[in-house]
């Protein structure tokens, strides 16, 4: 079983009456609600938390891309990836991912991911989401009717740029390039593992099966509701004669650990409420632009992740309801262990994307919950799926071949008004 500590990086300081006063946390949220001074603190807190998760032995550190919102403050997750590449050592950088249809030309993603892969010594997981309707259609102006076609073309270009040995020309419908010649190329060969996050579009299952990508179901409804999607995915895999390898499925789950079940409710309930009622307060008109979801997905009856129906489903729910219905797995280490093991078994899932910073949760609580999880839950679940090979995790350089950031102990020597900077040279730096 593999664990990716996933950060959404929400804005923690939305007012109490946010839901009553404003129609949406996404797209047209008032700009004056964002305070960059608090933002400065937040980004640094959040990076601290990811680095802490690295130290606690999580397999991956997850970040993702969203625009014009207080739900997740990462218009560019690659910037977070770069920051983590320098200050973490072991965990994989799960950038889940770049909405590849939004980049013009999409070769930009191939370049930046290659940079991250090289800087981190081959620790990158390359995520290729379509992106939410809020992000892609409303914030970035993509025509809903053509975004999936544009996504497919961008995917083709990026993979070709990573794998083609010679300079090539690319004559796409959306992107035309006379010379494609990726510098740098990724360290992992032929390219970093690709994970495709989805909110439940049925076409994504076929896409993943066809290309042998890992499918990451990012749901806010928890594992009980998520089973319908997981079952759909496994059915497609079975139909195509694919191995039902748990590592080819990722699942995002909100998890909170305390010493007792009662303590978990006391500590975490307000932050969960913030997450579901403020971070996910998306105006229904922005949830699902006409044409964003295909007709077959709409007909399949899968619920859109956000919007009126999703909110109605949560209306009036208490902590107990959220826990009982699996939106959140919370409680004592034993409770979390049992439920999470059951959840992962029922989904046949080998890559858990664990959401431990929930809504307005402050750093000390995040740290406490993370530490308890790492010490008292993770070791007990490690052995799950030991009979399967994880073909979807990165293959980094061995530790002995990795560059180390130089220590930051500059010595300043002043002689005759001339300043000389010198830093100790690390023997393992690139020559």
């Amino acid at each position, binding site marked *: 079983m593999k664990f990716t500590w996933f950060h959404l990086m929400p804005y923690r300081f939305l007012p109490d009456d946010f839901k009553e006063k404003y129609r949406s946390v996404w797209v047209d949220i008032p700009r004056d609600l964002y305070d960059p001074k608090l933002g400065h603190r937040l980004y640094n807190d959040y990076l601290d938390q990811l680095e802490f998760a690295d130290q606690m032995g999580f397999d991956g550190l997850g970040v993702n891309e969203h625009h014009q919102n207080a739900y997740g403050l990462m218009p560019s997750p690659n910037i977070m990836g770069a920051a983590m590449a320098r200050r973490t050592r072991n965990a994989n950088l799960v950038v889940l991912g770049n909405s590849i249809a939004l980049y013009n030309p999409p070769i930009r993603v191939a370049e930046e991911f290659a940079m991250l892969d090289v800087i981190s010594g081959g620790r990158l997981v390359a995520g290729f989401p379509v992106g939410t309707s809020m992000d892609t259609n409303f914030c970035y102006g993509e025509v809903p009717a053509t975004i999936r076609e544009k996504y497919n073309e961008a995917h083709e270009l990026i993979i070709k740029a990573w794998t083609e040995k010679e300079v090539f020309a690319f004559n796409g419908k959306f992107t035309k390039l006379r010379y494609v010649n990726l510098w740098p190329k990724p360290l992992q060969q032929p390219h970093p593992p690709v994970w495709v996050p989805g909110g439940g579009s049925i076409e994504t299952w076929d896409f993943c099966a066809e290309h042998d990508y890992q499918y990451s179901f990012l749901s806010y409804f928890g594992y009980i509701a998520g089973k319908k999607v997981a079952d759909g995915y496994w059915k497609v895999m079975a139909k195509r004669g694919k191995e039902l390898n748990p590592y080819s499925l990722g699942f995002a789950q909100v998890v909170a650990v305390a010493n007792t079940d009662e303590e978990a409710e006391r500590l975490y309930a307000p932050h969960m409420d913030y997450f579901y009622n403020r971070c996910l307060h998306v105006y*229904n008109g922005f949830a699902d632009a006409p044409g964003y979801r295909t*007709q077959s997905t709409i*007909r399949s009856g899968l619920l859109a992740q956000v919007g009126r129906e999703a909110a109605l489903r949560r209306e009036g729910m208490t902590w107990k309801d959220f826990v009982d219905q699996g939106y959140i797995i919370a409680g004592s280490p034993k409770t979390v262990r049992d439920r999470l093991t059951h959840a992962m078994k029922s989904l046949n899932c080998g890559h858990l994307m664990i959401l431990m910073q929930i809504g307005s949760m402050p750093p000390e609580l995040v740290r406490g919950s993370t530490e308890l999880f790492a010490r008292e839950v993770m070791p007990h679940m490690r052995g799950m799926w030991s009979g399967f090979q994880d073909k979807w995790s990165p293959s980094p350089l061995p530790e002995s071949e990795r560059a180390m950031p130089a220590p930051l102990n500059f010595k300043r020597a002043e002689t005759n008004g001339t300043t000389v900077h010198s830093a100790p040279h690390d023997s393992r730096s690139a020559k």
Partner: protein
Amino acid sequence: MKTSHAIGGGRFAVETYEFGSGEPLIFLHGAVGLTGMDPFLEDLGKDFKVIAPHLPGYGESTGGELIEDVTDAALFVHQFMDDLGIKSAYLMGHSMGGMLAAETAAHDTSRARKLVLVGPAGFWIDEHPIPDFFAMDLSEMGTYLFHDPKSPLAQLFLAIPDDMNQLADMYVERVKRLSMASRFLWPIPDRGLKKRAWRIAAPTLLLWGESDKLIPPVYAGEFTKRIKNARLTTIKEAGHLLPYEQQAAFCKAVRDFLKG
């Protein structure tokens, strides 16, 4: 009367509503398409041969995947007219259809004998941003589409069926139609008509609902200043859906212009 035409060597099957006889009057619908109950078409059928196609991707019309932008749409209208043996016609378009009619008339100046643009899209004025139609709930749409959103007509338009299957079908069809419309209108309905409108040679009538809150009457100026032979008539107590809301005044204005 509902009928169907094979257009472009069978590339498109086009569902059309046709009424009356006489000089051909082609009507291009707006973003939500025809309702199948569009009484103003039958009304105009008393004086003209009204032909109202559902654009590809709307209703039973196929071939939507071949129409990706306004050029494709204008070429489709040309092909539609060719295959029906119509060299030139009175060309009328409502909202998005007005934009496509104007494009068609600008591409080939021989197509439109006269042009009627009803609350047409096609321009963007920073000072008067058009509300985001695609992000609207049905209830909000009422406010923007009608002079009187409480009228029985408006209520009929905005009615939600009780039957779940019917509701699902309605929802899927609506998504399908608006998804087509997004090819011309998303995220801002300006696809360069301002570069081409000067070519429009046909006498042009702009018809606007006085209380149009979706594309406000101020947009008429963008058309009248670019189209050399254009005039504007506004209709009282009418919103964006003026052909439905003020059928009599609307049809009279169209008749007066086309027969005048």
